[in-house]
């Protein structure tokens, strides 16, 4: 094994793998280093109970950029985005809202709750799709450096201004409302029923320490709408074998393109010489050399741990120090004897082929957030559930079920306690809530996995367990992700780059940071 490379990527999560694959594709001798025994970062699948595949952390595929699928030829390595055709939303009174693939059937189903909302649903979707389509070019490109006086950067900035000014006024205004307002403000314009408001608002809180009535939840709502499955905005898919199946595909693609992946190779630090990165030192003392070093870790680790912050400008250090992480999400995953049943559906289980949204109203979500504001997990949490074996039968033995539950809110910092103490108590709260929805649920449980923000931080390395490697707050997005002046994947250390979800555009297994970073690196190399 040689220790000389053209590029070394630190971190074998999805962005590290994508970045390494693109660098290898451009002909660079590329090494991807992963601390753990498997690649994937937070996008892994593990058999935690015999025959049951658990998506311990990340649990669906949505924002992945389609360009990556084509450019890295992922379909020839087993890429398989299975459709999730239903969304099931239990209401508080034992009824439900079941949304599927047929527009008119959905209309009638929503009309059971409110005819007004049934009509509004189409209008709302059209509005969101228009806004997403309008700003897609901005999300799908490297933002200008807003701090730069370089005429080229200034011109790109001006071009964004012109682009926005050319949008239909209504679309621009909706965009501003989403970027600055709360999810509730927007949803209450369209919907009158609790279930429609609650269901839609859940996309405005996922992964973020905001309630649906907090300013800023509109941005989170918009961000999630960037998900697309075969050109349907806001639609999600489930990769065969879970997101671990997806990152295995990425690993195969990267290796096929010539990248080398080393597992169980934790990096201690980036080696620098005269403000240049020249390689990395592993924790076991091994030194590996490369003129390009890319960190796929979050900004806190990229700037404060892998390099000596004293080598960096004060402003950057200050900005990275005050970045908000504050993870508030947990996972509680189950191996089940069978599909749980919902009384009003009288034994049907084919409605569980997508997400099960346990968040029946804005008030429910806001109250769940109230607990978190004061340092505790929700007594009645929001749960984004998915019985993945109904989508990919190989996730569980025949007839049995594996269920992923994304849980909010579970703040990283607990008041007068800690997650090692509260882990199973959180699991009990979630299980009790599921028992309410699916009577007899607990009798089906074969195995339970509770993943707290602390576990996410410990296992995956995401600071404070934030699933986006930095919150989706306006001052941490676009020009400012992760910090003003450093949003173009470079760092103040020459040859040292960043490509994790803490960079533009952000998380959600989008892959764009890894792709854009490779483009920046290759441009810099060709300019040098």
């Amino acid at each position, binding site marked *: 094994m040689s220790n000389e490379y053209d590029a070394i990527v630190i971190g074998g999560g999805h962005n590290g793998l994508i970045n390494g694959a693109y660098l290898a594709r451009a002909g660079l001798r590329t090494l991807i280093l992963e601390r753990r025994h498997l690649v994937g970062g937070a996008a892994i699948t593990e058999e935690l109970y015999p025959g049951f595949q658990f998506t311990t952390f990340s649990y669906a595929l949505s924002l992945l950029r*389609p360009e990556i*699928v*084509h450019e890295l030829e992922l*379909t020839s390595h087993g*890429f*398989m*985005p*299975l*459709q999730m*055709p*239903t969304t099931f939303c239990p209401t508080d009174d034992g009824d439900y809202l079941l949304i*599927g*693939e*047929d527009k008119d*059937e959905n209309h009638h189903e929503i009309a059971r709750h409110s005819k007004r909302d049934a009509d509004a649903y189409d209008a709302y979707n059209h509005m969101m*799709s228009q806004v997403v*389509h309008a700003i897609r070019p901005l999300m799908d490109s490297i933002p200008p450096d807003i701090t730069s006086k370089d005429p080229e950067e200034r011109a790109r900035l001006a071009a964004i201004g012109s682009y926005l000014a050319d949008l239909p006024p209504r679309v621009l205004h909706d965009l501003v409302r989403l970027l600055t307002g709360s999810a509730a403000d927007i949803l209450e314009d369209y919907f009158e029923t609790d279930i429609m408001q609650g269901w839609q608002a859940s996309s405005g809180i996922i992964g973020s320490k905001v309630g649906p009535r907090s300013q800023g939840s509109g941005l989170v709502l918009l961000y999630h709408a960037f998900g697309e499955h*075969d*050109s349907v*905005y806001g639609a999600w898919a489930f990769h*065969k074998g879970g997101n671990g199946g997806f990152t295995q595909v990425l690993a195969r693609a990267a290796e096929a393109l010539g990248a080398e992946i080393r597992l169980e190779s934790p990096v201690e630090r980036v080696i620098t010489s005269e403000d240049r990165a020249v390689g990395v030192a592993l924790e076991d003392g091994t030194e590996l050399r490369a003129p390009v070093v890319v960190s796929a870790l979050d900004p806190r680790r990229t700037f404060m741990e892998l390099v000596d912050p004293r080598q960096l400008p004060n402003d950057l250090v200050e900005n990275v120090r005050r970045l908000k992480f504050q993870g508030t999400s947990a996972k509680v995953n189950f191996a089940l004897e069978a599909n749980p049943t919902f009384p009003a559906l009288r034994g049907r289980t*084919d409605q569980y*082929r997508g997400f099960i949204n346990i968040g029946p109203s804005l008030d429910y979500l806001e109250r769940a957030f109230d607990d978190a504001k004061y340092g505790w997990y929700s007594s009645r949490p929001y749960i984004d559930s998915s019985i993945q*074996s*109904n989508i*990919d*039968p*190989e996730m569980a033995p*025949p*007839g049995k079920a594996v269920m992923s539950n994304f849980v909010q809110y579970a703040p990283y910092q607990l008041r007068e306690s800690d997650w090692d103490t509260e882990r199973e108590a959180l699991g009990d709260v979630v299980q009790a809530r599921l028992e309410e929805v699916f009577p007899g649920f607990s009798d089906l449980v074969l195995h339970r996995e509770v993943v707290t923000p602390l576990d996410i931080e410990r296992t995956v390395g995401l600071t404070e367990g934030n699933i986006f490697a930095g919150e989706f707050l306006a001052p941490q997005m676009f020009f400012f992700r992760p910090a003003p002046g450093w949003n173009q994947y470079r760092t103040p250390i020459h040859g040292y780059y960043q490509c994790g979800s803490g960079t533009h555009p952000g998380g959600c297994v989008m892959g764009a940071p890894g792709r854009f970073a490779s483009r920046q690196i290759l441009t810099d190399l060709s300019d040098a």
Partner: protein
Amino acid sequence: MIRHTPFHPRTSEANQTGLWSHWSGYLAADRYQMADKFEYFAIRNSAGVFDTSPLYKYRFTGRDAERYLAGVLTRDIRKCRPGQAQYTVWCDDEGWVLEDGVVLRLSGDEFLLTAARPNLAYFSDLAAGYSVSVDDVSEEYGALAVQGPVSREVLAELAPEIGSLGFFRLGPAKIGKIPVTVSRTGYTGDLGYEIWVDADRAVEVWDRLFEVAQPRGVIPVGQTALLIARIEAGLVLIDVDFHSARYAWNDDQRVTPIELGMGWMLRRLDEDDRAFIGRRAIEREIEEKSSRWKTVGVVVDWQDWARTHNDRGLITPKDHTPQHGSMMLYDGDLAQVGYVPSFVFSPLLQRHIGIARVRPDHAAGGTRLGLEVNIDHRYAVVDSEVSPLPFFDPERKTA
């Protein structure tokens, strides 16, 4: 009156959409649930069960059955031993394709042939002087295709003898106590089987099959799902990719086996001493290199597809609903060099693909062609590339 297949008591329960097509006079489910893409993925990720009963089925029995079929069918049936199946075409005496189908050789002197159209008179008229009896047994059987990666383990659990069945092999089996014939054939290009059962026992087979299959996520699939899979598999469809020469009005509507991509059936023609219908015309076509077309795949350039739609303010369409028609193909000078009768966005390959017929000098893999599409009532030409068929050919299909 529209007819019901032997599985109708079950397919009608399973069809939640109320959407049926008429197929050879029978009701055939378009899709059983609102999400036909979910059904499609069952074929590629677990298994889908498709009711193929409406196909016409002919039984040929008798001492001369082999000799008779050797003269009627284009592909050499003598190479198909008892217990084997063969995909074949049959032609008229000018070498134009009449139809395609699958022959199951049940024994030395018993064959079962599937066909898309009625053929009893045609086959019977040709039987004069042969010791062969030709029977239309279309209504005697129910047929279920079980297609997808878990099909083998599901069927082997029902009848272990199926587990060892090779590609295009067949044999008797028992599902529950019901005698069936199982062939390792299908129309999806995947690992898959077809179960042939007496019509009056069909429902029992369905029930027993789903007892084992349902917990593995196997579901009934409708025509849309099947037709996506068959384009990926490069399998042609009558009345879409070709027309029967029997009912054609001109040669534009006719196609030879070689033009249809079946040249491989005729590769050893020099070692084949059969006098089969159309042979002389086919030999002439080979000798004179007079084929007008080649059947190939086309793959649309994803960037150009996105750009063309984006320029018109549209979200890039990725519609998995198969399009059957005649999209034009152009060379660099916008001269028409072919057409695409079958087109779809493949959910698995994530590409727009089509089965195309192009002029032989434009058929080499990698040839760039322009595909004409209609966007908001205006024509646009998007880049595409000739690709070999099939688009999707997993190892498990033949393993």
